């Protein structure tokens, strides 16, 4: 065999082997790092809040990445499954490189034993759902194989630890200011790791607008945060009037024949039974487009406008609180609203 003498010269051999392995290393790893396309940032990207960051640390510590991915691929069925198809901009339908600029490291994962979580903040914005789920997953999702994380409730957050994390990330270029650090103790006061993990989970995917134009992101299990809040109920009535709701639905929301339905009977969108508060919330926020998500026919083409652009979520919940109060009031008076 007339092989070259390099197999007799270990130093030359080692140098050549190094050069050979560096070729691909430089072209596919080092060189891309110098290009802006590996450092994109979506407009308005904000670093995680102290509570969310503490939640991300918990997410890392518990190895959530072993079972959950955080990247929605641009595949039709995947976009539908993770509700990217609600996004107003086509580019928002799947995960964008620019969403992860502050992710040290990326948490895309490699295995979906559980579902992808990249858009979780849009898909399941209900914190209550997540609290219940982390506490006892099988209670919420029968036959799920996720471990229980109830113990996180017993672990209080330490402001100093969160600040250390923020300082570490700041040296890496994540824009945390002194004011952000100073705000940490107040932000994590009395909070547990469970609060942090829930806050992080519902923050996922929020850097890009993936809200349904029609309020289709309704979580029917979401409770009304102001259900029995007297001040909110009063505010709801004011808003009901101020936004001319009564013009169609009547002064007391009893509806007007042929114009708009009664909102305080036991029906909703022309069918029985009634639906939970969140359905009313969705209809107000998204207008008639939300009906499809609610699975109700209603009037063809509908006439309900979307108020999501005009009213804050809290305002909408206040209106719902007033409607429900009104309904209870009518029931107590014993004369249901006319049809």
């Amino acid at each position: 065999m007339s092989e070259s003498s390099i197999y007799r010269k270990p130093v030359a051999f080692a140098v050549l082997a190094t050069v050979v392995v560096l070729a691909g290393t430089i072209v596919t790893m080092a060189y891309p790092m110098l290009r802006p396309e590996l450092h994109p940032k979506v407009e308005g990207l904000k670093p995680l809040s102290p509570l969310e960051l503490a939640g991300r640390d918990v997410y890392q510590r518990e190895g959530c990445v072993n079972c959950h991915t955080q990247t929605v691929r641009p595949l039709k069925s995947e976009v539908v499954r993770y509700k990217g198809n609600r996004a107003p901009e086509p580019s928002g339908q799947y995960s964008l490189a620019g969403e992860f600029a502050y992710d040290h490291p990326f948490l895309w994962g490699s295995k979906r034993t559980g579902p992808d979580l990249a858009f979780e903040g849009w898909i399941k914005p209900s914190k209550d759902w997540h609290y219940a789920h982390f506490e006892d997953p099988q209670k919420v999702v029968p036959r799920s194989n996720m471990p229980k994380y109830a113990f996180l409730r017993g672990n209080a957050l330490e402001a100093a630890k969160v600040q250390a994390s923020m300082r570490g990330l700041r040296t890496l270029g994540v824009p945390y200011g002194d004011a952000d650090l100073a705000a940490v103790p107040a932000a994590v006061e009395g909070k547990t790791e469970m609060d942090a993990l829930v806050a992080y989970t519902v923050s996922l995917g929020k850097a890009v607008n993936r809200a349904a134009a029609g309020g289709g992101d309704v979580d029917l299990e979401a409770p009304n945060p102001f259900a029995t809040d007297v001040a909110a109920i009063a505010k709801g009535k004011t808003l009901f009037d101020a936004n001319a709701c009564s013009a169609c639905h009547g002064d007391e929301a009893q509806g007007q024949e042929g114009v708009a339905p009664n909102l305080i009977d036991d029906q909703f969108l022309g069918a029985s039974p009634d639906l939970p508060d969140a359905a009313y919330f969705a209809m107000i926020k998204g207008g008639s487009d939300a009906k499809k998500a609610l699975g109700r026919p209603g009037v063809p083409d509908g006439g309900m406008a979307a108020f999501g652009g005009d009213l804050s979520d809290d305002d909408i919940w206040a209106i719902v609180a007033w409607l429900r109060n009104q309904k209870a009031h009518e029931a107590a008076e014993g004369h249901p609203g006319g049809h």
Partner: protein
Amino acid sequence: MNDYRYDYQTVQGFILSAMFWGVVGILLGLLISVQLWAPAANFAPYLTYGRLRPVHTNGLIFGLGAGAIFGLFYYITMRLCKRPLLFPRLARVQLWLFNAGIVAAAVSLLLGQTQSLEYAELEWPLDLAIVVLWVMLAVNVFGTILKRREEQMYVSLWYIVATVITIAILYIVNNLAVPVSLGKSYPLFAGVNSANVQWWYGHNAVGFLLTTPILAMFYYFLPKSTGLPIYSHRLSIVAFWSLIFAYLWTGAHHLVYTPLPDWIQTLAIVFTMFLIAPSWGSVVNGYYTVGQDWTTMRSNYLTKFFILGITFYGLQTVQGPTQGLRVVSQLIHFTDWVPGHVHMGTMGWVTMIICASIYYVVPRINGTELYSEKLANVHFWLVLVGQLLFSITMWITGIRQGWMWKATDEAGKLKYTFMDGVIGNYPYWHTRTLAGIIFAAGMVVFVYNVLMTIRKGKAAQAAAGSAPTTVAA
């Protein structure tokens, strides 16, 4: 002090350590396989799937894998350089540091200290320890090679040198981080760049911890065990250089359809396809080597380990590139197909060759014969059946799961919920646990056989009242 006998005890120390961590890692694998279908088997906070899975992977890659690499690299280097190690004491210190490091690594992972980077989970203090261990390996291997008494460097030494250099580069770059406490750091790289660096590392950790070192063993121990010379030296040369060249371009095939720029994905896919050629260079070389006398398959119990091992390497290196193609990746990526693929490589190729190498080395170190060839055959069939059952089960359920995720009706609505897919996994996950039990049983037989061989050697020495003889290279 500087003689073969002392160094062989170090080699054997690494081998026994690797076997110990191998058994621990496999038992943890069984536990996490149960946790997938029985969530009640999670014991929060320390023994949940999320914390245990990295202990399983790191325990086997760094405990079994690196332990075997350290021990067998030293053995091969000494034989091929025709001299003892240059720094025998250093190797002995390395052995103790290695075991202490694995213990610390396991504890830190159970405490939840992790960088969340696959196969680079360990936090910075342990990263530093691993760098120290690797430098110790480099110093001894390079030193011994430089002072060798055989001018020509054989193929196995090429793979050893390439392994030592490349792992050093990969490991250091991917673990660059800013520490915020003893158990927590934030990696230097972020987002899409962090993904690209991680999978450049991740794929090449497979390449240079689970491929090139195993090829070094294969090229040395196959001819040694069978007495048959490697079929083609020229093919060895071509396969070596093209393999170590092409491997480093391919990491991004783990990121197909992610937000990573398409050109990096495509380049990786192209080089992944090319990688079939050098991989099969070694496969063909292995087959033709044994092809010089196929009767050794029957007459020599070790031949089948090497032939089945290289066969799974061949299957692995065709299946892997196929998975890299976009049309395949979109279906099987993120599903249980992937653990099926990984375990064919680790159970069928890596462990098979490491075990065969240990079967070759341990009797020679102890101046005796293997305790029982019959048990070695039992070991062989158990691990073969266990691995096949494992992989095939996972491939089937992976494809099933991928289809269920994709299935839509005419209106474009999804046919199945995510939970439908999970529930469909349960019977396959049960079978996988069974497969793991069969595999683990095989490994227990292996460990028993090796320990009894050492005992037999000791008994023989005691009877003869003399030091073990060293079998010539």
